[in-house]
């Protein structure tokens, strides 16, 4: 399928663009080396930092990757990271993210159905207030409220709570989209026809309406995945989870150029993967997409 390959190619272009852009942006930042020491840092130490990053060398932006593939530690000793550590951390974050995605889809469906029910009642104001409250609450606040109960308990409790916390806002955001789509679909003729023919409202909803709402849901999965990963930065910090988000934030704060470049690129690749997965699911569930392909 050449069109599919073309789409794949377009998605993948994002990865090298992000890799190069992040390198040059980070390389433009001045390095911080001095700290609480009472005496000055030798100039030769500074030079060694520069060498580590490949700054000022032609093709310097390849340097972090070269080190990564040789199994060397990226960055300075304390925050540096090797390829396998990176993979381990990534798997942790992706695991949390996947659980959060599933939770978010659950929230979305639940919220959409509830809002459809509230529409005609006095509770309809909740349909607006709830998203506002969810959106107006930065992730770190619910995280902080729940953290003392779960941190250092093990049994995946911090991970699951983190997934819960970061999934609320994206879930409800997704829910409003689905609810809007639901409103549109419910007003259509086929619903009236089905109801008129004596099908129960429940089976109309599950059998006929929801499949039509699904494409709207799929469209929003990409942004939601982005929002989930962004939320995980704050959540991992509060829950003390040693995963990718934590690594990333520390690397940015400590201006560990090499780590930031590699991590940002991995991040972009992850989002590309999500995009591809969404395309694939769309092919499976949306007949219109299948027709467009063939």
């Amino acid at each position, binding site marked *: 399928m050449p069109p599919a390959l073309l789409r794949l190619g377009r998605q993948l272009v994002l990865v090298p663009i992000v890799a190069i852009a992040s390198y040059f942006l980070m390389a433009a*930042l001045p390095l911080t080396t001095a700290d609480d020491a009472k005496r000055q840092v030798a100039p030769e130490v500074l030079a060694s930092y520069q060498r580590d990053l490949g700054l000022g060398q032609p093709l310097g932006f390849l340097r972090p990757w070269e080190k990564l593939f040789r199994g060397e530690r990226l960055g300075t000793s304390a925050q540096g990271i090797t390829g396998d550590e990176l993979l381990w951390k990534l798997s942790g974050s992706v695991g949390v993210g996947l659980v959060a995605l599933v939770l978010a889809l659950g929230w979305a469906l639940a919220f959409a159905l509830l809002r459809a029910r509230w529409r005609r009642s006095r509770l309809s104001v909740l349909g*607006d207030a709830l998203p506002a409250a969810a959106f107006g609450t930065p992730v770190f606040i619910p995280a902080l409220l729940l953290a003392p109960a779960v941190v250092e308990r093990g049994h995946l409790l911090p991970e699951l709570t983190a997934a819960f916390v970061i999934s609320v806002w994206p879930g409800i955001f997704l829910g409003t989209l689905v609810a809007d789509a639901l409103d549109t679909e419910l007003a259509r003729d086929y619903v009236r026809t089905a109801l008129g023919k004596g099908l129960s409202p429940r089976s109309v909803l599950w059998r006929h309406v929801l499949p039509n709402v699904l494409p709207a849901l799929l469209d929003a999965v990409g942004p939601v995945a982005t929002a989930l990963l962004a939320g995980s930065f704050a959540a991992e910090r509060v829950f003390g989870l040693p995963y990718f988000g934590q690594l990333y934030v520390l690397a940015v704060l400590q201006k560990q150029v090499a780590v930031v470049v590699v991590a940002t690129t991995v*991040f972009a690749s992850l989002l590309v993967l999500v995009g591809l997965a969404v395309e694939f699911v769309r092919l499976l569930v949306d007949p219109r997409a299948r027709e467009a392909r063939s």
Partner: protein
Amino acid sequence: MSARRIPTRAWVGLVLLVGLGLASWLAGRVFPEALARTCPLGTDPTHPDRTVCELAFGGLWVSLAIGLTAGALSTVLGLGVAMSARAAGARVEHWVLRAVDAVFALPDVLVVMVLQLAGQSMLDAGHAGGLGPFGLMVVSLALVGWAGPARMFRNRLATLEGQEFIAASRALGAGRWHLLRVHLWPSLRPFVLAVFLSRLPTAILTESTVSFFGIARMEPMSLGRYLGTSYAALIYEGGARVVLPAWGLLVLLVLGASLSSRALGAGTRRA
């Protein structure tokens, strides 16, 4: 756009927004002493000489200023990109959309973090082109915020252009620019307002999260930075009185903005 066409919810939202703005302006700017003297919540533990009310309302004013400027800037930027993409033809539009997707794909917080670090070092070196911390924050928020609106405007324009009267006008020989100005812009206006209002809370929240990571340097303190730096008080006894007011103000702000923007957006959809 007559007043009758604006739904009640939009009014509620707008009144809420303007009320918050007015309250913060009066309390934070015009009569800060009165607020400091009457604050029932006491002083903030990290700023022992200032009251919680002072910090929260003063911060709200700064946050509103940031949100309004950044929101307006990113809306205008998005609109400009969308319009020029539509005007320039299918090929260019296609590539512009790819770029928009690329920007949209990375989380705002991450990009703002890196932009802030880069901007701050430029500010230190004196190459920021006259931007202070305020300008820097506005610019970084606008730089990440334009992609969403651009996509929305582009889709809206595409829908509008598909309507019959546009086709008729085009058949009568109207140019692209004429179409945009005379036919599309009037029906786009409320939508632009809706998008702008939806950017407002996003900007404030992004700033808050960036402050939480300890990067932003807004002085005087914005609501976002206040929340992002004092949230830890929540785990201590008596910390709720510090965090809850700021949090409540933020939720009200988001409620106002989202009510009015959704109502306006829905209104235009029905129109």
